[in-house]
């Protein structure tokens, strides 16, 4: 089963993930959500390391644009995701394995859709060659 890592801002997206779980929504992949203080706190190094350790795809979920508790967190997240995407292309893994999304706390229904979107991208690209077997 493909493995997806989701970095979630604790302000809104984490609530949405919790609600999705409480409502029994199912995912099309083995997903691990990691709570972070702000999407802007996710660093390029974190994103690259997730792939080196075998993630097939990584999504960063921040709050809705213009609704960041830290004002510029979303903008910072976008810059870092763009930089990491560039590196993923350079190493030949493919930038579409990584994406930034914006979700509000009352949008739990979007979480499985986003995971499905990333799963469909992985199906097109194939698994991460570094993925842990089994």
């Amino acid at each position, binding site marked *: 089963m493909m493995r997806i890592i989701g970095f979630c801002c604790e302000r809104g997206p984490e609530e949405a993930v919790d609600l999705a779980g409480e409502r029994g929504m199912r995912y099309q992949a083995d997903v691990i959500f990691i709570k972070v203080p702000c999407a802007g706190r996710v660093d390029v190094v974190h994103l*690259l390391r997730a792939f*080196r350790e075998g993630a097939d795809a990584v999504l960063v979920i921040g709050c809705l644009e213009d609704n960041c508790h830290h004002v510029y967190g979303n903008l910072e997240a976008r810059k870092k995701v763009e930089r990491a995407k560039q*590196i993923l292309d350079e190493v030949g893994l493919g930038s579409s394995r990584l994406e930034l999304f914006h979700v509000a706390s009352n949008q739990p229904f979007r979480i499985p859709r986003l995971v499905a979107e990333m799963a469909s991208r992985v199906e097109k690209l194939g698994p991460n060659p570094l993925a842990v077997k089994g």
Partner: protein
Amino acid sequence: MIIGEQKSLEEIAGMLEGQQRILVAGCRSCVAICLAGGEKEVAILAESLRLLSSLKGRGWEIEEATVERQCEKEWVAELSARIEGKGSVLSLACGVGAQTIQAMYPQVRVLPGLNTSNMGAPEEAGVFVERCGGCGDCVLHLTGGICPIARCAKSLLNGPCGGSQGGKCEVSPETPCAWEEIHRSLERLGRLDLLEEPIPPKNWLPSRDGGPRKMVRKEAVLTEEQKRSKGGKP
């Protein structure tokens, strides 16, 4: 400060061909300010190289270290334990830092991770511009504090060329004409009279034309006795 720009991952990977144990060495001074070779950039490059190595089976063992100033022996001496056993050091400092490491650790191969570009300053967050040509014969007192050597594409000393249009340089519409800026600055200062005195042909010997430059501050040079008392350390 010295402005540098990281080489492409492809070029860096090419230099590391055949290497195994590699230290990525950063510098917390100029290149950290211009976001090319500080601790953060070292971490990102090292992780990128680890990822590339895992994907392509290069077998690189990559460590990271960043010193305060890679151009000074005292700070570079801190790297000795980290360099032990490495085949190469990928320096993310300017060319001066890379050469300092090579001089102090002749047994390792030092590879430049940056292209050292110029002496400049941050204009705004993330934007760095060249400001000094290092000509060794400063004329800023005559030019309203604006360097015609670094900021004029032709390094003209007595007014703009015919390519100056609407305050911009013909080289690029984004580049201000240095002589337009000099004129405005002297106007603000009430010293347009300085423009009436021609600046004579420049002596380029204090610049690169005179070969590698060396400055000696006699008052700071240690006597033989002082060197001995410091245990031979500089």
